[in-house]
């Protein structure tokens, strides 16, 4: 834990230095930040906006907004600051999707989809984990935008109810309701795969 804390401090120190340089007009310094955080922001945004093209545009917009608003950074975690900008960009993209329907959701068998690497060494367990992660992604993509946003922010990003309420501009009760209803909806969508979540998932 102590080591992890030191690594986190070092990363934060590095990020703050890059922000300072970027504020002075150093685009290369900002692009170092992009390289460091683009994977996280991509994973966050593409879960909120399950159309890769639109998610890609939203991530690009988030980095542009971050660059334009470097002066608004008040310290703290650069990763969290970028994450909040990306969440806003993703929610803007969600509204855009409502007006203009997205491309059909890509088939999850597509090898461009990557289940997160796990500790499973056993091929059978690895295959099961991959199938589970793909089924989850598909279920997540097929609930409402509001439910998906609340679930991703809570279950994946670790925001608490109050933070999600502030980020999404709704009440605490609405956040809870979206999470509960979203999980119920996912449970229904995962009916055919529910065996993957029983036994060793709890």
């Amino acid at each position, binding site marked *: 834990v102590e080591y992890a804390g030191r690594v986190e401090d070092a990363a934060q120190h590095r990020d703050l230095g890059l922000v300072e340089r970027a504020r002075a007009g150093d685009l290369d310094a900002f692009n170092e930040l992009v390289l460091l955080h683009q994977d996280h922001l991509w994973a966050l945004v593409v879960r909120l906006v399950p159309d890769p093209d639109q998610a890609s545009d939203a991530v690009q917009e988030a980095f542009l907004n971050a*660059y*334009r608003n470097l002066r608004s950074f008040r310290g703290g975690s650069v990763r969290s600051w970028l994450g909040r900008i990306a969440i806003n960009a993703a929610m803007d993209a969600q509204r855009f999707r409502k007006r203009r329907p997205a491309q059909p959701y890509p088939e999850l068998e597509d090898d461009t989809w990557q289940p*997160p690497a796990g500790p499973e060494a056993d091929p059978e367990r690895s295959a099961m984990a991959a199938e589970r992660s793909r089924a989850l992604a598909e279920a997540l993509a097929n609930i409402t935008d509001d439910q998906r946003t609340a679930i991703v922010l809570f279950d994946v990003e670790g925001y608490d109810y109050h933070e999600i309420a502030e980020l999404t501009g709704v009440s605490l009760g609405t956040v809870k309701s979206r999470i509960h209803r979203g999980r119920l909806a996912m449970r229904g969508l995962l009916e055919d795969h529910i065996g993957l979540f029983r036994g060793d998932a709890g």
Partner: protein
Amino acid sequence: MTERPDHTSHDRLLIAAYAAGDVTGPDLARAEALLGSCHECAELRADLAAIAQATPAAAVPRRPRDFRLRPADVESAPSRGLVSRFGRSLGSFRRSLVPVGAGLATIGIAGLLLAGTTGLFGGSSAAILSTVGSSVGGNGYGSSRDVDTGGGPSPAAAASAPEASAMAPEVPDTGAGASPLAGGGAAQSLLPAKGTDGQEAGPVPARPSTPAAGPSPLVLGAIGLVLVGAVLLGLGLSLGNRASPPD
């Protein structure tokens, strides 16, 4: 065959809230009673907990590209964050933008119709209406035959519509300019019936000329309501409805 409780009538949302640890008070006892008596409710609770725990492992597509910014991106891209920030700052009022905008526009249009039917439009008011119509539709309904106000287009209007000015070879400066909102069509619609030499410029039907009096407050108010309503309506539609009610 054992008798099973009717699971379909059970409160699944309560079970979901319980699985998330969000149930307190009397609901807690109700949830525990359900879980103790209904196997399917207990199974649902376990499934929901397992799904929540597994969600961080949901697959994501590969990152399609490198998002580093190029100098051209930074210099050329217009800022698109202002509308979004403005929308967020509006708070719960965002929900009201569309109905309020539609209501104001409707009232304004009704006011204009009322003014039209009751004869409250003066000559200048008709010119304003023509101007508004042309600025909205790009081509005013009015024509040189319809309007004889004795007022020529303002220099600003003429400057904004050179092609219209070119079509008006001799425009007298009467001092009573049209609205600067006037576009090309409006400038054309405000052409005087007479040339500078005082002779008839064309077969313009005789129509009593009205003095260049200002439009009535009702007309101005109605136009203002229509414009404000249209702006609010457009803003509400573009911002969407982020602050939606509970699901």
